[in-house]
């Protein structure tokens, strides 16, 4: 009897221990529920499942957030005057908000927009969800209790050690773009102190292990073989014939291809400039997609029209060596500077935020076949 009770006690103790262990064990992707104290919102991209990666430049961090949208809407998400409507929902006017980035939930196809609401000391980051639900087209994602994990962007320079004084390090990277592919989050940034490439690769789920972050030095050769380093403004992972490339777009406006397998920790890599999209221009967004078995790349530009290029041509293109040669052929597919945000929606469509006729901005779905 005693023995039975002892076994029962032992069993229940074991069960309790197991239960406590299960309770404490983080889920497999390392995300835990709780508040996210965000300081700013910038670039974002969806990753595996419901995970949204979101850059916080002021906090020097990237958050992985679980955005558990239910179901998939069949209706197109379109919204004329999206800037004014988001502003209204946030209790302000369009001149008081700034849209930083847009991403499409891979399952629900809801549109997520990062917004800074207000200015100066009043500025607050807001993650806005735009849906085809007529009753509530705009809602805000609360970060008060959300499943998340965080990776810090280590801007702390290696050489500040030994210099005391308690002053804050003013060095910052502004994350210009994020992409997730094959288990890795790729992060491009623009430093406020150096005009050089700050390209990182972080394994997800995030761990605290330092080796999980790779810092990459990327050079590209332009024109007469002058070699240079510059911040990547926007980039897209693109698989061409089984090889993963990073297609990076720079200021005024070379498109440079890197084989991802060449990008190794601490090593300098030289990429191949395959196209020049024109001077006096900033690339706004770049995506790649396949339509009817053919690969394409779309580049939205601040000054020039949005342009379509062929992935196959990029894969085989020689590096540009002469200033007058523009490289891979491109087709203009928008008015100049019209598209300010671009994202892949589904097999047939992309979604854009573009300048509207009335001076505001419109969210539009556009068929890939129309390009």
């Amino acid at each position, binding site marked *: 009897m005693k023995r039975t009770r002892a076994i029962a006690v032992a069993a229940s103790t074991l069960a309790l221990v197991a239960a406590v262990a299960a309770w404490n064990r983080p889920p497999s992707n390392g995300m835990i529920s709780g508040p996210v104290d965000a300081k700013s919102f910038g670039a974002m991209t969806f990753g595996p499942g419901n995970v949204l990666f979101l850059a916080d430049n002021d906090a020097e961090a990237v958050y992985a957030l679980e955005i558990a949208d239910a179901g998939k809407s069949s209706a197109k998400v379109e919204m004329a005057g999206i800037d004014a409507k988001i502003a209204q929902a946030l209790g302000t006017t369009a001149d008081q908000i700034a849209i930083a980035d847009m991403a499409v939930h891979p399952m629900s196809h809801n549109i997520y927009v990062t917004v800074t609401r207000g*200015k100066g000391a009043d500025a607050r980051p807001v993650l806005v969800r735009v849906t085809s639900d007529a009753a509530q087209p705009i*809602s805000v994602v609360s970060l008060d209790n959300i499943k998340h994990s965080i990776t810090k962007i280590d801007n702390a320079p290696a050489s500040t050690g030994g210099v005391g004084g308690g002053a804050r390090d003013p060095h910052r990277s502004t994350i*210009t773009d994020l992409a997730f592919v094959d288990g890795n989050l790729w992060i491009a940034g623009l430093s406020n102190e150096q005009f050089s490439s700050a390209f990182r690769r972080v394994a997800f789920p995030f761990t605290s292990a330092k080796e999980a972050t790779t810092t990459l030095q990327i050079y590209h050769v332009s024109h007469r073989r002058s070699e240079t380093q510059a911040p990547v403004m926007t980039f897209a992972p693109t698989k061409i014939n089984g090889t993963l490339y990073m297609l990076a777009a720079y200021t005024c406006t070379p498109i440079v291809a890197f084989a991802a397998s060449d990008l190794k920790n601490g090593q300098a890599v030289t990429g191949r400039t395959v196209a020049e999209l024109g001077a006096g221009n900033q690339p706004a967004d770049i995506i790649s997609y396949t339509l009817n078995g053919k690969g394409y790349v779309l580049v939205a530009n601040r000054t020039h029209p949005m342009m379509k290029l062929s992935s196959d041509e990029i894969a085989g293109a020689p590096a540009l060596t002469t200033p007058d040669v523009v490289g891979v052929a491109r087709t203009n597919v928008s008015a100049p500077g019209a598209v300010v945000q671009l994202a892949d929606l589904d097999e047939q469509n992309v979604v854009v935020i573009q300048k509207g006729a009335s001076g505001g901005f419109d969210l539009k779905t556009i068929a890939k076949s129309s390009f």
Partner: protein
Amino acid sequence: MIRDTARVALTWATRATFLSVVASCTDQRPDSPNPTVSFQTDSARPHFGAALATPVDSRARGLDSADWAKVFTVHAGDTAGLPMLGRYVVANDTLRFEPVYPPIRGTRYTARFDGAALNRALHLSAVAATYGSNAIWMREFPSGTPTTFVTAVYPTIDSVPMNLLRMYIQFSAPMTVGDSAENHVRLLDEKGNVVDKAFLVAAGGQELWDGDHTRMTIFFDPGRIKRDLKPHEALGLPLRAGHWYKLVVDSTLHDARGLALARGYVKQFRVGPIDRTMPMTTTWRVSSPTASTRDPLTIDLPEPLDHALLSRMLKVLDGKNAPVGGHAAPSEHDRRWTFVPAEPWRTGNYFIDVDPELEDLAGNNLRRPFDVMPGDSVADKNQSQRARIPFTITSRVPK
């Protein structure tokens, strides 16, 4: 009392005429008089607003937020646009709307109670009554005397290379980010004409600030500085050797409180030849302080280096490679670096460890020039060796 209800002063009641409708059934009539709509401020958090409607129909107290969102809405501007997001609470006979976000300065808010919508929600369809109330409230612009100013523009030296890469504008207090700084910061030539397309505007107009929002970085357009690029060939460098320029920061920039600057700032500088020479630590003159003192260690540089990078890219190590605590600062227009140790120096060997990414004013670092053309002499870009400058601390020799 934390809450003070500014009901009357801020309210612009457009009380719709309450129509006494002859209803066949009295319980089909609203049981409350037309509710008064008002805005409330919280003295603990003075800018947090809530909108109130009181009294509300006793039968309506069980309505949910989706119903209330059709009845009682708060709008930025007039009521034509989407309502603000927020939550609804009914306590006693008062309906309270708490916006998710606080009101923005200078924006006019309209709260609207739509009695007809309430009737519909309560299925009081037999009543043709239209009743409702509006209130308008505005969070005032900040008042006060501007106090924020530009404390320095780096480089502080008045002679810069023609291929100057960047400037830093240091403010005395946090600033508004995204204030279209490109409209308030101008480069003027000797004739007072604006030098067009001088600066890089990052995608999305992103401005480059430090974490405190007190220092803004402006890059000269690298496309015009780097050789072999179209803008370089078409427009040339933004700065011309032998000429004077002015960087003008207008007082119209706003600080984080929303106030303009106390005064503008003009940085005048002369442009010298192009600098495509990498900084070399072998040309630096290092002083060796004496043991048992906290005398400063100084490095005199033959040219000014980038202020921000010079402030953080050098460190002092002892003979065991352990960092030596202390305070470092650039001076002499960034041609000198001074380090004061926290503890007195001990006799022995030390090193100054230099990050090879340390740059001069033209973006040339210890590893490579800013741009490299065939035939340029350049160190190996894969070189990750840090430069190390040894120095020895000895006891003072008795005279």
